């Protein structure tokens, strides 16, 4: 079961960012994102400064720009929304390349593009440097209610169970003469989705019972909680990024 290891976005490395405790990284990322969102959209220079911050952290974490940018394509659907805005928006119109576009819409599009991209990059950096196990330990140390961390633990654990069962059922179908191509694979999959759920549940229940019999109480082992909790120094080091971001946002707010 891959629960203890990384997920698809995790980049194995031993950079200073990887070594920071997870709770520190989560807090830094959340504060950074809020600062970005609070920045007025006309303050173009501020977004440039945020981008420099992100690039600096990426370099420290040894995450390449190509990896980051290709993963950032996830926000594509909302970029499409941004492209539509200059045409849909109301208010003053400006001429751009012979098209009469809404000025408010153009600003809105820039707003979504800039803030969305920075947010995606920040969370990709968190994902690239933190394993799922660490993420949950971090949330737990940030006093996230235990019900939530428990559901999250099982979710991440059972994703593998679910994928594994789906693969097994597909092999079973094919070995019984089913020969799915392209979209027709969906038919067999859809017909078996209830069975998939049930099989995954019964497997997952066995995993859970095994955990219970090994002393699971609803919280991850106490060893994890104590080991490597953030020191004051680490909080200070990690605080540089959100503090810088917050001061950029404050400056932009004052200037606007």
């Amino acid at each position, binding site marked *: 079961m891959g629960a203890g290891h990384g997920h698809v976005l995790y980049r194995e490395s031993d950079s200073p960012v990887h070594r920071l405790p997870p709770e520190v990284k989560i807090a830094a990322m959340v504060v950074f*994102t809020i600062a970005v969102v609070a920045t007025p959209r006309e303050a173009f220079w501020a977004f440039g400064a945020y981008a420099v911050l992100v690039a600096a952290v990426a370099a420290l974490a040894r995450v390449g720009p190509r990896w980051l940018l290709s993963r950032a394509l996830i926000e594509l*659907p909302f970029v499409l929304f941004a492209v539509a805005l200059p045409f*849909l928006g109301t208010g003053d119109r400006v001429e751009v390349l012979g098209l009469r576009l809404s000025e408010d819409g153009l600003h809105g599009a820039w707003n*979504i593009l800039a803030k969305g991209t920075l947010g995606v990059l920040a969370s990709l950096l968190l994902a690239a440097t933190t394993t799922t196990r660490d993420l949950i330990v971090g949330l737990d140390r940030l006093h996230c209610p235990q019900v939530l961390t428990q559901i999250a633990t099982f979710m991440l654990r059972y994703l593998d169970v679910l994928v594994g069962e789906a693969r097994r059922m597909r092999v079973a179908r094919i070995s019984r003469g089913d020969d799915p191509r392209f979209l027709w694979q969906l038919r067999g999959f859809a017909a078996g989705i209830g069975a998939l759920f049930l099989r995954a549940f019964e497997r997952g229940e066995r995993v859970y019972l095994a955990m219970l019999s090994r002393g699971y109480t609803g919280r991850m082992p106490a060893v994890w909680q104590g080991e490597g909790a953030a020191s004051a120094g680490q909080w200070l080091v990690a605080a540089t990024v959100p503090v810088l971001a917050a001061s950029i946002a404050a400056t932009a707010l004052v200037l606007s």
Partner: protein
Amino acid sequence: MQTLAMHISNGIIDGPVAAIFAALALAALTVCVLRGRRDLDDRLAPMAGLVAAFIFAVQMLNFPIFTAGVSGHLLGGALAAMLVGPWVGALCVAVVLVVQALIFGDGGVAMLGLNITNMALLGTAAAYALIALLLRVLPRTRAGLAVTAFVAAMLSVVVASQGFVLQYWLGGTTDLGGNLAGLAGTMAGVHLLIGIGEGLITATTVLTVAKVRPDLVYALRSLRAPAAPLVPVAGGVR
């Protein structure tokens, strides 16, 4: 794995409205945590995890809405409400959204309150209200259960999509003027189609679970006479 699902990302709704909805979501989730803690027993804990994993997987199926540039996807709120109840169900969807925002960059972290309100709270609440109503009205047969699951899933998706329209009306960063009604129409129309897909998946899954392990369906608990002693699951359906 290339994930293309996307919730409200940073910058679409302005800060103050996002903050108000974040406070609202936090308050509602606190209630869910308090109520859900009572529900979460040895049988529901693994089920909640699996429901969350299942929702996580189906939310990656994404349908772009070309005319407005918005995309829609399956939500899973009805499935969660059906199998683990409204409280834990809302928590499951919320956990999915938090993890997606934190490590997949799917939906802005600053917009989490909005996304949780729409999908975890509105979607699950609407679904559970419908489930509670329909299970009382419809005959207690497999067909009745199927119709309940289908309708609850379909309508909950539409309700959740209208939550976004409301939020955009309150704090959209770009004034769409008269196009807001258009946005509402597009969102409702497309999510009705998505809702049909979601309804089919929810109905199939719930029917299968209800057939083999009726004890696992939360929504059926209250309607049932005290259940027969549990059959041990070891070596169940293999």
